[in-house]
Structures are given as C-alpha cells and as structure tokens.
C-alpha cells in the first residue's frame, strides 16, 4: 500500500506542478495590470503614425519600422513591449507574421484580440475566485489555501508584473511529498494541504521580495546573473 501511495505521489506530484504552471499561465493575463497594459498598448497603437510598420523578428520580438520626420530617415527599433512568452496570449503576437512587415492596422488587430482575450481571462479569474470561495464554504475549508495562494500570486503579479514559473527541484519534491502525506488520509490531509500551500505561498512572497530588490538595483542583479549567481 505504501509503495502504491509512493508511486501515486510521485506521478501526481510531478504532474501537479506543470498543471499549476499552465493554470497560472492561462490565468495571469486576466490580472488587472495585464488588462490595463493591453489597453494601453491598443491606445498607443491607435495614436501611432498610420505609416508605421511592424515586424516580428524571431528571438527578438516585435520591431517597429517608422519614419522619423525630424531626422528624415527610416528606423527600425524593438517595440519596447515586454511580451511575456509564458503568457497565454503570447501567440496572438508571435504567430502569423510573414517575411514582410505589416502595417499598423494589422498590429492594431492583434492588440485588440489580445485585449479581448485578457478580458476573458479576467472573467475566468473572477470565476475561479468565486468558485474557490464557494468550495471553501460548501465543501471543505482546505480550498481556502488554494484561494490564498492564488490571491498572493495575483497580488505579486499586479505589483511587479512578472510571472512565476515553478520548475525547481524543491517545488517538485514539495509537491510529491505533499501528495504522499495527503494520501495517508485523516488529519494528514489538512497537514499536507496547509504545508504545501504554505510553502508555495512563501515561495511566491520570497520571489516577490527578490523581484522588488532586482527592480531597485538592476545593475547588481545583472552582474550576479553574469556570474551565474542569479537565475
């Protein structure tokens, strides 16, 4: 029985992490900050010069080609939009570009679709919170741990605008251990959920603090990254 539980714990624990990552990737574009950023992009595009062209460069992202009237020259520059490749709406920007640059209205169409998808994700996020509150009251209070994790994660996303990807060895070990303890049943279920939930909430808060520090002194962290001391 123990060996069976161990096997289930390993398989379920290993599956749970990518599933949760996928869920967060799907959910995060619905964050109010993301929706506001998408709306600002659309607004910026609408007020841009109608002769502006856009091109997607592989590995480099979106580039803008425009005519600088003052200097009387054409320039190509990166768009300065941080399009998150771990966002569920990234494909809106990344696919469908040919070799030729496309005019502003094509980029505007993408920005509009991006905004619509983010609003849908926002509705989905609100629905998820409502569902978790309902489950916490109607089924078991353990769902409140998931709710707390989700709220902390989204709060972090709203403040720093960065997405967390749980892919470290410690995350997998904690997940597998949590499932194994949960499978023991009885009071261990609550212990497992609270411990694993608490661990991941701490991970999010710690990452949040690190990201804030990185924002404050980017040069230091760039240097640490160069020396392989920072991911």
């Amino acid at each position, binding site marked *: 029985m123990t060996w069976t539980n161990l096997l289930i714990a390993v398989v379920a624990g290993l599956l749970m992490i990518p599933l949760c990552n996928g869920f967060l990737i799907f959910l995060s574009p619905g964050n109010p900050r993301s929706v506001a950023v998408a709306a600002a992009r659309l607004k910026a595009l609408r007020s841009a*010069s*109608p*002769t*502006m*062209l856009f091109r997607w460069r592989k590995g480099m992202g979106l580039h803008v*080609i*425009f*005519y600088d*009237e003052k200097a*009387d*020259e*054409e320039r190509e520059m990166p768009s300065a939009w941080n399009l998150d490749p771990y966002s569920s709406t990234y494909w809106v920007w990344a696919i469908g570009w040919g070799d*030729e*640059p*496309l*005019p*502003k*209205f*094509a980029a505007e169409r993408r920005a509009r679709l991006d905004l619509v998808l983010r609003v849908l994700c926002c509705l989905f996020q609100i629905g998820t919170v409502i569902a978790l509150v309902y489950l916490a009251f109607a089924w078991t209070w353990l769902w409140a741990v998931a709710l707390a994790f989700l709220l902390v994660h989204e709060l972090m996303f709203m403040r720093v605008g960065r997405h967390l990807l749980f892919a470290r060895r410690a995350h997998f070990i904690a997940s597998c251990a949590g499932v194994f303890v949960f499978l023991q049943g009885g009071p261990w279920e609550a212990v497992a959920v609270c411990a694993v939930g608490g661990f991941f909430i701490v991970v999010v808060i710690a990452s949040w603090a690190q990201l804030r520090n990185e924002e404050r002194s980017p040069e230091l962290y760039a240097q640490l990254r160069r020396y392989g001391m920072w991911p």
Partner: protein
Amino acid sequence: MASDDRPDEDSGDVQFHNRFDGPVDAVVQAGTFNGRIDFHFQAERAPLDLYALRLWIDRIARDHRLRLDRGGGGPEGPGRLADVEAVLGGINDSPKARTRQDMVPRLIIGGVVAYLGRAGHAPRTPLPEQVLLDLIVFGMWPIVTARKLPEHWQGQLSMLTSPRLAALVARAREAHRSDGEAAAEDFARRVADRDFAPAMINLFDYLGDPRRGGALLASMAVVGGLEQPSGRGARKVLTWVVGIAGGAAVVEAVLDPDSRLRGLIEAAIADLPVDPFVLDLSELFADIMEGLEG
C-alpha cells in the same frame, strides 16, 4: 526641355551623367535623386490623375475587348480583361470602391502601366535613373489625386513601398487638396530630394511576385499593349521597366561598347538606389537585352 533651375554646365554641381555628347543626338536630361529635376511633366508626359487613369484603363480595356471579339488575345485574354475590369471597378471614386482593401495596389499598378504604356510619347529617351523617378511619380500620382481612399491606405502604401514614401504621399495629398493647382512636378521634386531605395525594392518585390502584384501587373501590361514581364522577382521587374521605358538608348549603349552612352548608363545603373549586391550589372544588361530581343 530643361527647367529654369538647371545649373550652369560649368558649375561644379553638374551631374556628369546628366548630359552626353555621344552618337545619339538627343540630350538626356535625367532627373536624379539629388533633389533636382531637369524635365517637366507636361501634356503627354504628365502623370495621370485618378480620373485620367480611369479613362486610360477604360480605353485599353475597350481595345482589348475588341481584340477578343476578333478572336485575338490568346487563351488568357478573357482572364486578363477580367483583371483589368476589376481594377477599373476598384479604382472608381465611389463609396463602394473605397471600402476595397486592394485599391492602393491597383492604383499603383495602374499608374505604373500607364506610364510604361505611354513611354513612347516621351520627347527624349530617359536614363534608367529617371525611369525610376518617373515610376514613383506616375505610380503614386493617382493616390495623391484620388478624392477618397480606403481607411488604412497609408499603412498599405507603407507596406508596399516604405513609411517615408507613404508619409511623402500623405503630405502631397494634403497639399493637393488644399491647393488644387499643386503639380506633379512639385511632387517629383520632393521625391528626387530623397533616397527611396527601400521603397523601390519593396515595390519591385511586390510587382515581381505573382502571388501578390505580379499577376495583376502582367494582365495590365498585356492589355495595355506591353510585353509581359518575364520571370519573377524584383530584378526582373526592374529590367522590364528600364527595358521598356529606356529601350532605344539601352540597346544602343549595350551594342556599342566604346560609346560614351554605355559608360553613362553603366554609371547610372551603378547609381541606382538599389542594393548593388542585389543587382549584378552584367546580368542586368543581359536581362535587358534578352527582354528587348524577345
């Protein structure tokens, strides 16, 4: 037919390839991409505004229809006529036409073919460099003069040519609307003032691709009484254009290796605002010769 602002021949800013004393009598006064033009767009040489372009296309379509009625035009004749009639329908100044997204490329192709179809009216043989300048002016003038265009015309034009040329055309449109007398010559002078190499490469790329503008260009050319461009790609379209518009001068230059004209044309082609790595001069001559002999 030199303009008043033509510089003194003895002054230092005379472009060497603007005139020659070769075996051909005509004096070539080429507009160059140095901000000065040495010719006038008048009468038969004037670029067609939208109204005149529509009349011209209507006329060549009627001629082609007659040719078809008499059993000519070949198996592709009806298809080509349909293409040209679609262009005619698409460039109407009607509200319905303005919603058509391909109105801008149709206007450009119409302007280009109208220029080449009327190249025989030129009082003298132009150099390739002037052909390119003319091509931009004639291709863009219907857009400058069109009363209404589709909503995203600037984006389309920018994509087909370059943001700089699209901005220039937009300004010319404004000037033309506020001052109806604004002439094509002013527009040509502004075009000549800048480097439009990326715009021309993009435009020739578009016209040389059968899946984009190439098919329509071929139909328009044949119905307009021109040779169909052979092959695909920007270079083929460039040689086709230069071959048609500068035919006699190019033949003479290529046939006589010692002529000064040959040197002048070589210099002009070398100065073409096209990436020299894209264009090999000897290949270009060979293509022009092949096209002319064909």
